[in-house]
């Protein structure tokens, strides 16, 4: 008993030290490496406009990925995000037909996102259903509604000032989308790492029962997370629709998997409880750089998906293999 000191220090390891040994640092090194390799393999890579174009590969997905990261850290998942984009985009297209202007379209996009998120949240938190099945269901349902509305048609004719969201530049090569991406990243960083709400998200993800027993309103927190994910899907829908200037029901098809991959690559545990926003930001850049770099080398998109898939499994498998090999 004499060897334990009466005084307990706050920390043994400084936050900086902890950060240096983290997943995010490793990932950042990977991103830098890819950047360097890319700049050597293609003469077109180190061009400001090309790099600016590159950011469009990930900005919309990353906006959703931040909200998805919180959701996955809290132990849930939303596979319906891409379908929410489709439905929100379809709703905006329909709103154009009845003559709504740009402000109205934005409200419609955000509103549909929120409603879809609320629907998912209701089914998961109020009815106690597993989110993976619920959102596989709503994934079909939301996109299905787009198909019912549009069939094999498309909505076009968006107002010209609507194009700013997906095609506008704020300053030189800095696009509006990129600025929006940066702001959203900052907001989610603060929510997750600097607020009581973020602390509750970690607590719930690590042990939902323990969190509930500690007086956290678990269902309420999860409901808000579904709302946020829906809202971000609405934001992404506005940007994407504006960028494409058209809506088909197949819009953003398969994005949910890329978004989940981005989140997991960013170091968020798919089992919940751990992960960070900086990790997701770096992962977004890594995926953007890989896609862009391979694109410059004329590698077809489907082959990139092999790289992404291998990356997804590899980043989780390699540390575990290393652990196994050591013991």
């Amino acid at each position, binding site marked *: 008993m004499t060897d334990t000191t009466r005084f307990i220090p706050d920390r043994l390891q400084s936050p900086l030290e902890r950060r240096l040994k983290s997943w995010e640092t490793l990932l950042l090194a990977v991103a830098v490496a890819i950047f360097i390799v890319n700049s050597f393999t293609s003469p077109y890579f180190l061009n400001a406009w090309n790099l600016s174009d590159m950011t469009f590969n990930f900005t919309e997905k990353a906006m959703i990925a931040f909200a998805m990261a919180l959701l996955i850290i809290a132990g849930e998942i939303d596979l319906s995000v891409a379908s929410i984009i489709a439905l929100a985009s379809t709703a905006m297209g329909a709103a154009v037909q009845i003559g709504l202007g740009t402000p109205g379209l934005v409200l419609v996009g955000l509103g549909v996102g929120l409603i879809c998120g609320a629907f998912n949240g209701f089914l998961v938190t109020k009815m106690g259903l597993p989110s993976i099945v619920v959102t596989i269901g709503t994934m079909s349902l939301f996109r299905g509604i787009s198909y019912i509305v549009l069939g094999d048609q498309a909505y076009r004719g968006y107002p010209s000032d609507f194009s700013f969201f997906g095609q506008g530049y704020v300053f030189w090569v800095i696009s509006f989308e990129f600025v929006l991406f940066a702001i959203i990243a900052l907001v989610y960083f603060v929510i997750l790492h600097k607020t009581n709400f973020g602390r509750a998200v970690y607590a719930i993800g*690590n042990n939902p029962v323990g969190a509930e027993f500690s007086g956290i309103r678990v269902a309420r927190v999860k409901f808000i997370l579904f709302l946020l994910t829906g809202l971000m899907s609405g934001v992404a829908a506005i940007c994407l629709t504006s960028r494409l200037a058209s809506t088909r029901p197949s819009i953003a098809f398969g994005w949910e998997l890329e978004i989940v991959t981005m989140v997991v690559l960013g170091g968020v545990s798919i089992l919940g409880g751990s992960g960070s926003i900086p990790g997701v930001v770096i992962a977004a850049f890594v995926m953007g750089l890989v896609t862009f770099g391979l694109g410059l080398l004329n590698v077809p998109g489907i082959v990139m998906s092999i790289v992404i898939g291998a990356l997804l499994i590899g980043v989780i498998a390699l540390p575990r293999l290393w652990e196994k090999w050591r013991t």
Partner: protein
Amino acid sequence: MLMETDQKSVLASTESEIPVLALNAVTKTFPGVTALSEVSLELFPGKVTALVGENGAGKSTVVKILTGIYQPNGGQIEIDGSPIRFPTAQDAGDAGVTAIHQETVLFDELSVAENVFLGHAPRGRFGLIDTSAMMERAREILESVGAHIDPRTKLKDLGIANKHLVAIARALSIDARVVIMDEPTAALSQKEIEELYDLVEELKGQGKAILFISHKFDEIFRIADSYTVFRDGALVGSGAIADVTEAELVKMMVGRDVSQIFPDRERKTGDEILAVDGYEHPTEFADISFVLRRGEILGFYGLVGAGRSEFMQSLFGITRPSAGDVTIDGERAIIRSPADAVGKGIVYVPEDRGRQGTITALPIFQNVTLPSLGRTSKNGFLKLAEEFQLAREYTERLDLRAASLDTDVGNLSGGNQQKVVIAKWLATHPKIIILDEPTKGIDIGSKAAVHEFMAELAAQGLAVIMVSSEIPEVLGMSDRVIVMREGRIAAELSGDDMTPETLVRHAAGI
């Protein structure tokens, strides 16, 4: 001196035979903890050996080693004198070792018969499971343990006592030479316990070796032939049951005099703070009414599965009651969630610390401040300095031992984890604190600390409800005791009525 005579008597009884199963200087360590340190244990055919020890003494670890769940780090297991290894549970079963586990670990969605025979079902044509033979044999075995259950019933439709009997039937369905019974009577009524004793006698008659783990000294002296005592993962004594007294066993078990464990305190209680009236749940409890006063420690005693925890969790807002009222400080309280309960001043220290009490992957300070974040933050933004300050204040009051406040709770010992849970709740300034088995699975030093702290809280005017299955603890700490049986209040005892006999009598329903 005691040890010498014990060993002689063991030698005397073993001259004729070698043990069917033996542990030889077995050690088991986990990162940071030595669960077992060179312990030995011998089981003989037709004999019942009682394994005695406090919670955390290493009894469960021994069971897990004997059944192939854990691998020892040192020493060896011997069957009929020759060494053997149990890499998986299957291997232990094949070697004729079967166990009735403390927690009834079974399969809700499978039928009773499948629960009994999973992994060794009778085979028919093409090697397929012979369902009708399985049902028939399951019925026979269930009858033999006094369980009159249709083997086709799904397990989830059974009550807790019957589930326990199915677990016993499962252990007996394996044609075993060694039967381990880990607190087999914990959830059973007196009638069922008597039937189990008969069964133990029958198994003895069949020449099976039985390892009987129990807290209850009356049953140890009734059915055991020899004893082995563990303390803090080490062997402290063994011998024939006839050569030992209860007092000697207790002394070996705790390593000092028992009478000193409980703090003396002045028992004076204030005005009424909590009144529960007619609390009821469709399947777990019914008709619960009582009052609680400031400065009082109210004990809740009962068998495992008497509905005490279920009721407390309902009072804390985890499950909704179907009827009943709660009045706190004279005002009717509506509690729909733990957050509501905390807001009204009721906090709950659960029995299951790892799952319900703490968030083991988060550091100590975050666990402590979790329900109090509203006080340590500003406009919803975290203020780490204030969090550390609050955590420090309460963990120091509880004399927590840890490397730093940033250490994950999962790395702490059971006793220190419990201190974190209590610190977490005290930081919310509660009026009523419910402690569910507060000293289960923690070492003696922490146990005494928790007891002293409970007394201190009561002295400060907090109302304390303590759920406990340990009679000395209930009697040593409580001002009043409510005994529950099968989901209802069986008796409310105070003063001279609070004796071990009355508690057991009301709890078992004799």
